[in-house]
């Protein structure tokens, strides 16, 4: 997993030979790194899928109860999840932590445009109607909920609809 951590003593530009060396070495490790990325992503996804299911955010009723203000469960889950994620990101920034491949961790901010409001409202409506968000659709499908395939095909149709209309939508 070790990437090349050549610590240059002086900020002088590296010679061409050195740069070539570096890229050659990097490409030989990149295949192993790519495999590792997929393995860890699968693991984190599985972890998350178990949590989505066991926390019951995959249940239509829980989402409906949240929007009806009858149940604080989902608000507390979202709130505590954001708090922990925020703490984690704070520590990562504070320690200037790198990922296990040696690359610095940097959040790329999602930009603001009119779609954040218009698309956000549409998404919220879908969240309430189908009682699912993209993450929990996959958890429902994996759990063997046949009806979730309608939600999933719908979500793909919605994505195509956006691909088709994007040039004409306000951004």
């Amino acid at each position, binding site marked *: 997993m070790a990437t090349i951590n050549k610590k240059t003593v002086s900020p002088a530009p590296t010679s061409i030979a050195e740069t070539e060396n570096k890229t050659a070495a990097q490409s030989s490790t990149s295949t192993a790194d790519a495999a590792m990325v997929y393995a860890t992503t699968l693991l984190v996804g599985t972890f998350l899928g178990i949590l989505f299911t066991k926390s019951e955010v995959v249940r*239509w009723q829980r989402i409906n109860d949240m929007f009806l203000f009858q149940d604080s469960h989902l608000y507390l889950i979202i709130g505590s999840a954001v708090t922990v994620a925020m703490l984690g990101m704070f520590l990562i920034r504070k320690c200037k932590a790198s990922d296990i491949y040696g690359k610095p961790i940097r959040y790329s901010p999602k930009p603001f445009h009119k779609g954040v409001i218009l698309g956000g409202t*549409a998404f919220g409506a879908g969240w309430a109607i189908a009682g699912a968000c993209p993450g929990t659709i996959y958890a429902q499908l994996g759990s063997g909920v046949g009806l979730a395939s309608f939600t999933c095909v719908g979500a793909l149709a919605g994505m195509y609809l956006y691909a088709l209309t994007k040039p004409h939508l306000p951004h």
Partner: protein
Amino acid sequence: MTDFLLQPWPWWFSGPLIGLTVPLLYLLAGKGFGVSTSLQQLGALCSPGSKLAYLKNYDRRQGAWTLVLALGIAIGGFTGSHWLSAEPIEFLPARFFSVWGAIKLFIGGILIGFGARYAGGCTSGHAITGLANLNPPSLIATIFFFVGGLGVTWGLGHFLF
């Protein structure tokens, strides 16, 4: 302990662990947590000859991990519902098992897919990762997720549910 794990998990246990996904995915995979990009990935994968810029200009190799994450979530869903639950989970109320129910799920799905891609993220990318990184547009997105959800539930509730 086993009893605890086989019951639905309380928020103070599951919520923080869900939040942990964000730093974990950064540290272990170097990726920002988000799920709805996987829809674009699927679209680009299923229609490679598409003339639509949204799919044509999308880097399928860069985004392949989004489908691996989705696959993981599905495996986790199976694990959670089949091996870690004492009782079957009621994912959808019984009234959804009808033609009208399937149509509602399909319409909801369209709004989810369209809205999440138009907004640039969903509950995971905007509401969790975005808010955790103090990204102002993500706060706006999250507010409007609730505007849409509350509007439908309170405005059209009698018609829809």
